[in-house]
Every structure is written in structure tokens, then in C-alpha cells.
């Protein structure tokens, strides 16, 4: 499929990389902004520096591609951050809110630009203004202190009394271009600081035929009148410090303009065509990693130290990883096949062959784990979006909420991470909108004014369990039932267990919101959650205690690629039972089985009555064993923590299987989560224990949908 697109041109590749990078940086910015309010003094300034760098690299890239809107907004963000950094504005809630708005807009524009659309000019302007307003409030910063290029018209304001004047000489080396910096952006930034006079010295420019396009020949002299600090001026050159010759001098306002001859400090980059330093220039600087050398400057800000970061990760196309994963999958199948043959060979004196096979299978497992690990990511990436969602929603709804995150480092397959975001968002919206009470109601109920939502991730028996726990009012069963009856989801007279009522909120077309809000309540929410989770081979359930809160539990497979399974036989069919859900298995004796209420059968096991489910009758499979005592019961655990006894004919052994989608070419099959290919090339279905349970639990007042008798007379094969 991917091949059809044809090779990307070089520029398109760069573009793609730029957008990739933007996405990463934007996530980074979001992350940092979320944690900023809690950060202490020291980490705060470090975080601000990180923010600044992230925004700056977006701006730099956008400048190179001429994405003006991105430059505008990122510039405004940068300016605001800069002021924050120099502590002219505090990191107040409001300020962070505005920064977040700015980031959102930036993300929006990046998306639009990526899709080749124009940004909404009005929004750009508004956001830029609101960001500017942030530091305009601060008395130190004058109106023209840090204007974005969009507001150039108000730049020509008279210098204030405390204005300073800087004479700046700037001679970029070729390295500046190599590092994808653009002098124009620097000039714009300078201009944003105040009143700027620019003169270009093109004396070094060679005739066109001798010109090396990769070399830098131009230099500039700037005369900047600003009330920004010297630091602020130096900041602008921060990222090009090692790629230019620079001299910043403060001159008195009255002083006439300094001579404009080519007066440049010694270059640090490998520039062959730098003119010999004129006598008036300061002594050449010894270190190549120099910060802008300015006469009488203070020690450089600490931020500059961390410019050289070690590369510890590689960006790899997901397609490539997928190819690798697929390949390993096929290998696993082949290996399973070889193992089958190998067993036969071993019987005839081929022990060494067999040993070799065993070694190979252990290597295979390592290889597979390794490849899978490449796809694993911490759930943090999804969780990080939630604090913000909660803040916005709680503001909109007028509720007070505290969010606690747990287990953010739990790792899960990237595909699942991506698909997790929507259901999780729905669930949190649901909890906030329907679960949590208004502050006043909470106080009246003897609870704290501030509600709590806990979002936790945990790895349990090969699955990832994600829980959204709130301490709200719980599910209002009376109302839920009323609505369900009203919508025709349940018969009026039906008697339902409390849990069954709770489960109704997942029914299609169910919405308890009395009016449609833009938060939740379009009647799709929880239904969509359940469906999308099921499509991932997971399940979602709710446990609710009226008055004290609700707990949504989402259980998902850790990976969509492979799993350990037990092959079970029922009649002529083989099925795979996920190993993770098997508790134990045992042989049935007729006297163990008891019939309850004339239809359900249970088995007494370890002082517990466990419902029995005959796979043969559930799936209408013929040709099975007729004698109960010949059959096996496998105890499996469902997502709700219930135990179920699956009656099967035989256990054929454990195998690692590659999970293949049934839905890709067909449809979802009840009781089946996916399929796999066995060593003989045949397809085997992977059982979905929760789905199986769902098939026997009478729903909405219906009779049980499948007979679960396992007595011989019901087992007549068709």
C-alpha cells in the first residue's frame, strides 16, 4: 500500500520530518506546561528553558519552510516564555492557560499547514495579542517590548526614558545555515525588541560565478534602541552563538551611530573567508563553543550549557517496525511447525536436532520480546493529555476536580496507545459530567468540595488494566433504569440486578444527560467506549457504589501482535484460550455438577459454585464427547474477576500464537476476540472469555441465549 505513494521528494521528506518534529515538540510543550505549576523554583526555570527550546525549534523549522503563521504564533509564545524566564511575569494559572491556548493554536496551525490549508488569521491575531498582553501587563515591559511580527505597525514608538541602545555586529558563518537557522528570523526578533536600524555589509560577496552557495558572505550591523535587557538581546543569538561572529555593545542613546565598517569579532566556525579582525576588535576567543562575546557582559545564563544533548533514541518509521513484527510473527508460526515435526524426529534419534530447535525457540522468544519492546510506549503519552481535559471540563462545568495519575510508566503497544485516547477521553468526560457532583452538593453530602478522579494503569496477567475512579455520586440506578425503559432498551417489568443496570450505560443509544451538552451526552459516549475497547480485544466494565463513586475498568491486551495461548479441542474444532485468563483445569465427575433453577449448571470447586459453560453448545459445535466424565473444565477468570468453568473436550498444549484480525476481512464474532494460524496452516479462533460470559448472561430480560446444559442428551450432534 505504502509503495503506491511513490518516492517522496527531498523537500517533502524534510517537510515530513519537520511535522514529525513539531508533533513531538508540541507534546513536549504540553507535558511541560502541565507540570509547570507544581514545579519548584529550580526545576521551573529549567523547565522554562526546555519550553523555550522546544518552541524555538518549531519556530526555526517553520521559518525555514516559510510557514508564516507558525512562526508568528511560536514567536509570540517564545516572547512570552522569555519574559517568564526573566521573571517579569509569574507563572500564574492565567499565564499558563494562555500559553496552553497558544500551544493549542500552534498545534492547530501545524495541522492545517500540514494539510495544506490556511490558518485562521483571526485566531492567530487574537492569540498573539493575548500572549502579548501577558507581558504587557507587567510594568517593566513596555508596549513595544516584544512584538510579534504580525504587529509591526505599532513598532515605531518612541524610545522610553530607560531605553538602551545597542550596537550589534553580526556575521554568520556557514555553520549557521548548516544548523538550519535563518538570519532573517534573528533580525525579526531584534526588531521585535524595539526600534531597529539595520545596515547590511555585502562587501565580501563574491561575483556569482565564484559564489559558493553554502558559504556565508553577508554581515549586518544593527542599531537597536530598546528597553529590553542586554540578556534579552543576547538570547536572540543564543542558538546561533557558535555559528556566527557577534559583538554586542551598549552605547549611550545620544551617541551617534558607530562606524559601520566591517568590524567583526573572530569567527569560531570554520569559515575560510572571514576577514582579518580589524585592530579595534577584541582578542579572538579561544573556545570554539563560545557564547556571544560581548564586551563587559555578565556570565552567560545557565540555559546555554545544555545545548548539546546526547542522542539516545532513533526515530523509526512505524511501517518498518510493523514489517519486522510481521516477520517475527511468521517466524513464530514456522517455528511452531518445525517443533511439531521435531518431536517426531526426536523419537527417531534426532535429539540434537531437537535440542537445536529448543535453543532456537528460546532465541525466537527473545527476538520477539525485543521487537515487541520497540513498539512499547508508556501510557504517559495518553495520560498526559488528561489533566488538561479535566481542567477545561471542570471549569466549564463549575466542578472542582483533582486528578491523580498512577502507573503512568506502564508500557503498552503503540497501536493501543493511539487507540486508547478516545475511549479514555470519553470515560473521563463521562465521570466529570455525570459522576461528579457540584461542589455545593458534595459539601452537603459530607464530602470534600474538591472531587477526585484517579486515573491508573497497571499490568496484570498479560493485560493492561486502566481504571478511571471517581468519588462522585455513582450511577443513579433508578434514573438509568427509567431511561433504559423509556428508550426501549429494557422491558418495563424486567427485573435487573444492580450490576446489570449499571451495565446499561454502555448500551447503544443510551444517554443520561437530560440535555445534550458539549461535554458528554450525545448518547454515543459509553457505547462507543465499549465498542472501541472491544475492537482492541479488551473490555470495559463499571463498578458503582451509589453515593461514593464509580470505577470504570478497562482491560486491554498489552500487544495486538502475539500472546500465549492454550489450544483446546471441542468436537472437531480447536480454539485458543488466552493463557493469561486460565486459572486451572480439572476433570469433571458427574456428581460435581449441579443444576440450578433448571437451566444453569454449576460446579462446586474450592467451596465455590462456579457456573459451567459448555463451549460446544455455546458455539453449536458437533462431534464432541458425550460423556461428561471424559470432559475437562477449564476455570477462567473474566475481566470482572469472576470465575467461569469452560467445558471442553481436551487440552492440546500451550503455544505462542500470532494474533490475526478477523474483522479485517470479516466481522466481529461473539465470543471470539481474534484468530491465529496454527502450525499446520489452519486458522484457529482465539476465545474471548468475557464475550463468552456475555453470551450466557441473560440480558435485558431475555432468556439465556445459549443452552448451557452439558448433559449428554443435549449433546446430539447435528
Amino acid at each position: 500500500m505504502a509503495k503506491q505513494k511513490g518516492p517522496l521528494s527531498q523537500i517533502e521528506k524534510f517537510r515530513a520530518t519537520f511535522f514529525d518534529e513539531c508533533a513531538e515538540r508540541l507534546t513536549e510543550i504540553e507535558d511541560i506546561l502541565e507540570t509547570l505549576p507544581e514545579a519548584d523554583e529550580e526545576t521551573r526555570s529549567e523547565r522554562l528553558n526546555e519550553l523555550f527550546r522546544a518552541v524555538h525549534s518549531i519556530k526555526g523549522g517553520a521559518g525555514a519552510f516559510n510557514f508564516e503563521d507558525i512562526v508568528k504564533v511560536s514567536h509570540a509564545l517564545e516572547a512570552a516564555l522569555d519574559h517568564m524566564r526573566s521573571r517579569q511575569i509569574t507563572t500564574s494559572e492565567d499565564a499558563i492557560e494562555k500559553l496552553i491556548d497558544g500551544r493549542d493554536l500552534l498545534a492547530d496551525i501545524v495541522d492545517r499547514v500540514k494539510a495544506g490549508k490556511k490558518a485562521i488569521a483571526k485566531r492567530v491575531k487574537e492569540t498573539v495579542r493575548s500572549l502579548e498582553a501577558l507581558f504587557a501587563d507587567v510594568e517593566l515591559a513596555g508596549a513595544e517590548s516584544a512584538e510579534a511580527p504580525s504587529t509591526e505597525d505599532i513598532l515605531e514608538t518612541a524610545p522610553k526614558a530607560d531605553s538602551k541602545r545597542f550596537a550589534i555586529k553580526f556575521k554568520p558563518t556557514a555553520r549557521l545555515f548548516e544548523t538550519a537557522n535563518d538570519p532573517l528570523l534573528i533580525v525579526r526578533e531584534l526588531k521585535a525588541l524595539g526600534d531597529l536600524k539595520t545596515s547590511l555589509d555585502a562587501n565580501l560577496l563574491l561575483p556569482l560565478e565564484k559564489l559558493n552557495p553554502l558559504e556565508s558572505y553577508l554581515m549586518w550591523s544593527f542599531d537597536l534602541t530598546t528597553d529590553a535587557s542586554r540578556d534579552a538581546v543576547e538570547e536572540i543569538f543564543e542558538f546561533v552563538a557558535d555559528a556566527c561572529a557577534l559583538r554586542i555593545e551598549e552605547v549611550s542613546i545620544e551617541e551617534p551611530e558607530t562606524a559601520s565598517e566591517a568590524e567583526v569579532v573572530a569567527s569560531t566556525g570554520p569559515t575560510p573567508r572571514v576577514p582579518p579582525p580589524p585592530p579595534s576588535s577584541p582578542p579572538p576567543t579561544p573556545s570554539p563553543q563560545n557564547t556571544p562575546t560581548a564586551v563587559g557582559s555578565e556570565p552567560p545564563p545557565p540555559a546555554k550549557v545544555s545545548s548539546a544533548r546526547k542522542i539516545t533514541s532513533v526515530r523509526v518509521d512505524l511501517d518498518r517496525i510493523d514489517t519486522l513484527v510481521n516477520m517475527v510473527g511468521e517466524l513464530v508460526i514456522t517455528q511452531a511447525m518445525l517443533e511439531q515435526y521435531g518431536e517426531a524426529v526426536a523419537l527417531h534419534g534426532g535429539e540434537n536436532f531437537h535440542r537445536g530447535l529448543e535453543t532456537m525457540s528460546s532465541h525466537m522468544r527473545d527476538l520477539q520480546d525485543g521487537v515487541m519492546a520497540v513498539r512499547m510506549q508508556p501510557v504517559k503519552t495518553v495520560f498526559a493529555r488528561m489533566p488538561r481535559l479535566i481542567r477545561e471540563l471542570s471549569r466549564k462545568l463549575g466542578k472542582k476536580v483533582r486528578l491523580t495519575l498512577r502507573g503512568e510508566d506502564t508500557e503498552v503497544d503503540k497501536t493501543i496507545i493511539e487507540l486508547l485516547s478516545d475511549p479514555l477521553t470519553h470515560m473521563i468526560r463521562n465521570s466529570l459530567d455525570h459522576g461528579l457532583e457540584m461542589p455545593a452538593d458534595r459539601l452537603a453530602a459530607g464530602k470534600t468540595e474538591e472531587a477526585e478522579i484517579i486515573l491508573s494503569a497497571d499490568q496484570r496477567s498479560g493485560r493492561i488494566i486502566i481504571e478511571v475512579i471517581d468519588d462522585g455520586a455513582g450511577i443513579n440506578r433508578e434514573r438509568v433504569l427509567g431511561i433504559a425503559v423509556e428508550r426501549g432498551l429494557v422491558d418495563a417489568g424486567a427485573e435487573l440486578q444492580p450490576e446489570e443496570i449499571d451495565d446499561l450505560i454502555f448500551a447503544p443509544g443510551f444517554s443520561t444527560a437530560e440535555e445534550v451538552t458539549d461535554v458528554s451526552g450525545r448518547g454515543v459516549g459509553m457505547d462507543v467506549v465499549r465498542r472501541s475497547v472491544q475492537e482492541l480485544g479488551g473490555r470495559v466494565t463499571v463498578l458503582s457504589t451509589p453515593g461514593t463513586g464509580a470505577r470504570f475498568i478497562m482491560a486491554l491486551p498489552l500487544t495486538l501482535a502475539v500472546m500465549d495461548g492454550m489450544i483446546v479441542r471441542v468436537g472437531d474444532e480447536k480454539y485458543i484460550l488466552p493463557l493469561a485468563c486460565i486459572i486451572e483445569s480439572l476433570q469433571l465427575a458427574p456428581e460435581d455438577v449441579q443444576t440450578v433453577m433448571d437451566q444453569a449448571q454449576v460446579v462446586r470447586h474450592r467451596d465455590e459454585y462456579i457456573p459451567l459453560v459448555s463451549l460446544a453448545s455455546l458455539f453449536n459445535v458437533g462431534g464432541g464427547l458425550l460423556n461428561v466424565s471424559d470432559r475437562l473444565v477449564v476455570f477462567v477468570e473474566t475481566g470482572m474477576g469472576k470465575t467461569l468453568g469452560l467445558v471442553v473436550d481436551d487440552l492440546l498444549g500451550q503455544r505462542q500464537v500470532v494474533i490475526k484480525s478477523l474483522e479485517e476481512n470479516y466481522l466481529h464474532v461473539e465470543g471470539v476476540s481474534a484468530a491465529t494460524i496454527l502450525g499446520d496452516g489452519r486458522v484457529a479462533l482465539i476465545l474471548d472469555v468475557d464475550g463468552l460470559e456475555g453470551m450466557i448472561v441473560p440480558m435485558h430480560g431475555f432468556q439465556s441465549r445459549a443452552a448451557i446444559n452439558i448433559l449428554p442428551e443435549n449433546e446430539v450432534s447435528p
Partner: protein
Amino acid sequence: MTTASNQSNGAPVLPATLTDAEGPKSDDVESQFITFSIGSEEYGVDILVVREIIAWTEVTQLPNTREFVRGVMNLRGSILPVFDLRCRFGMGLTEVAKTHVIIIVYVQDKLIGILADSVSQILVVKNSEIRPVPDVDLVVDQEFLAGLANSEDRMVAVLDVEHLFDPEMLRDSVDKARSMVAKGESNGD
């Protein structure tokens, strides 16, 4: 069968829409159909939607599905459903033998297998020669036919594969199967 599978090797990947039964398109354009037999009847599918033709292989049954869903098979790592066309047309389950074939076709981005008795030939007809289905009582629901074409002295019913196994219909059939199970009716013969 040999000719057909040779031909289908180069079949393009993307499905093409089938000729409309109602209004024949640009008259002189020729269409190619792979024809196959089910019992004494000949059916044809647009060659452009046929990906390949393979000999019958054992399929894995799916629980609680309609009878004509024979099960799923493995086609080089993809899992796809196999439908029994004879059964789909209400003529009972096919008693499969090694000589039966599965025609793999693309329907709405999905790969499905159609079980047929044997593949006959590649039929080339002008679009103008495909006639609408007359309004008579056929065994086959008329909505699944795109038209009728003549092959020498035989009549070939051109199938509208998109309609025949479209997902909505299948979903519907799954529900039906479920309710049959729920009512305790036998799903088999």
C-alpha cells in the same frame, strides 16, 4: 481452472465496480468475467475484482453464523471468510471435495472467498450484450445479479458481489443466527 488462475495472476489489486444492470455503459467497451459453475448453473464475476483462485482448503468454522458462511481460511497470513454460494442461493450446502475451488474476490476493501464447484472460463462480452435480469421468479434473488450474458449457448448470470456479501447483510445474518440460537433453533441441517 488452470486458464483462469493463470489469468488472474496479473489481476489488478483494486476492485472495480461492476457493470450496472439497469443502464448498460458505453456499449462497445468489453468486460471480462470469470465464470464458474454451481451445479448446472453458470455464474460470472468481473475479472477485476478477482484476486486469485485456489483449490478448496479446509476452513475453520465460525460459531453461530449463517449456514452459508463456511468458515475462515488462511491466505498467506490473512484470515478471510469463505462463503458457500450454493447455500447462499438456497440450494443447500456444498459437499466439498478437492476439486472445488475458492474464488478470492475483493469486496469493499475486504477479501472474501467464494466457494464454487469449478471455474469454467473467461468470458469476454461487450457491455451492450449484458442484458438486464428479466422479472421472473429465479431461485437467486435478483438484486444479487448485475445482469445476464450469453456464453456460446449458455446463459451466465453476472453476480453483483458487492451486494451479495456486503457487510450490512452479513451483520444482519449474524444477528439472525444469534436469534436463532437464542430461540433454541438448530442452526444446522
